[in-house]
């Protein structure tokens, strides 16, 4: 809970500072600062995500689930977080086209990760059919 207040305070202060920097002669530094704060907030919140993930892994091992599927899901979540981060930064700086391409790349990578699972589902369906 304390992390939330820290993050909100940091975000408020930074928003005002970025507004201020954008008025100066180097508006590029405003983008740099916003990227920096985004990375800081992400780094702050990552330990919590890792806690949740460890609990999910424990549950999966108790249910004797195949760890391959769970690992794939976590990889997909990680890819989406990072891609969202990058795309949001690009869009904030006014480069919507680059942001769209980043999201496209992330979607392709997620698809590549998901293909083995789809293949496994199809295989089991084929096995069910006579």
């Amino acid at each position, binding site marked *: 809970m304390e992390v939330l207040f820290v993050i909100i305070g*940091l975000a408020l202060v930074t928003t005002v500072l970025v507004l201020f920097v954008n008025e100066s002669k*180097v508006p590029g530094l405003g983008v740099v*600062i916003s990227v920096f704060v985004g990375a800081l907030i992400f780094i702050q919140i990552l330990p919590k995500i890792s806690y949740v*993930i460890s609990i999910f892994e424990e549950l999966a091992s108790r249910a004797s689930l195949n760890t391959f599927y769970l690992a794939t899901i976590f990889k997909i979540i990680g890819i989406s977080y990072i891609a969202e981060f990058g795309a949001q930064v690009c869009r904030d700086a006014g480069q919507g086209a680059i942001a769209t391409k980043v999201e496209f790349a992330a979607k392709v990578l997620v698809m590549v990760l998901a293909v083995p699972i789809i293949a496994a589902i199809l295989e089991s369906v084929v096995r069910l059919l006579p």
Partner: protein
Amino acid sequence: MIGGTGEILFLTCLAIVVTIIHTFLKQAGRDEFAYLTLVLGLAVGLIEVIPVILDLFHQVKTVFNLY
């Protein structure tokens, strides 16, 4: 308290100082040096920020088992 709060203030101070130097040089008629200060300020800011982004990527890699 998050480590790295000081760097935000540093970057803001950098923007202010670069703006002042830019205005000063422009008044003195040295437009090329004025532009160089802008580039230098941006480069210093990026050098300051890039290790943090690298750290973020490494942490995400370890948390989500992305290899």
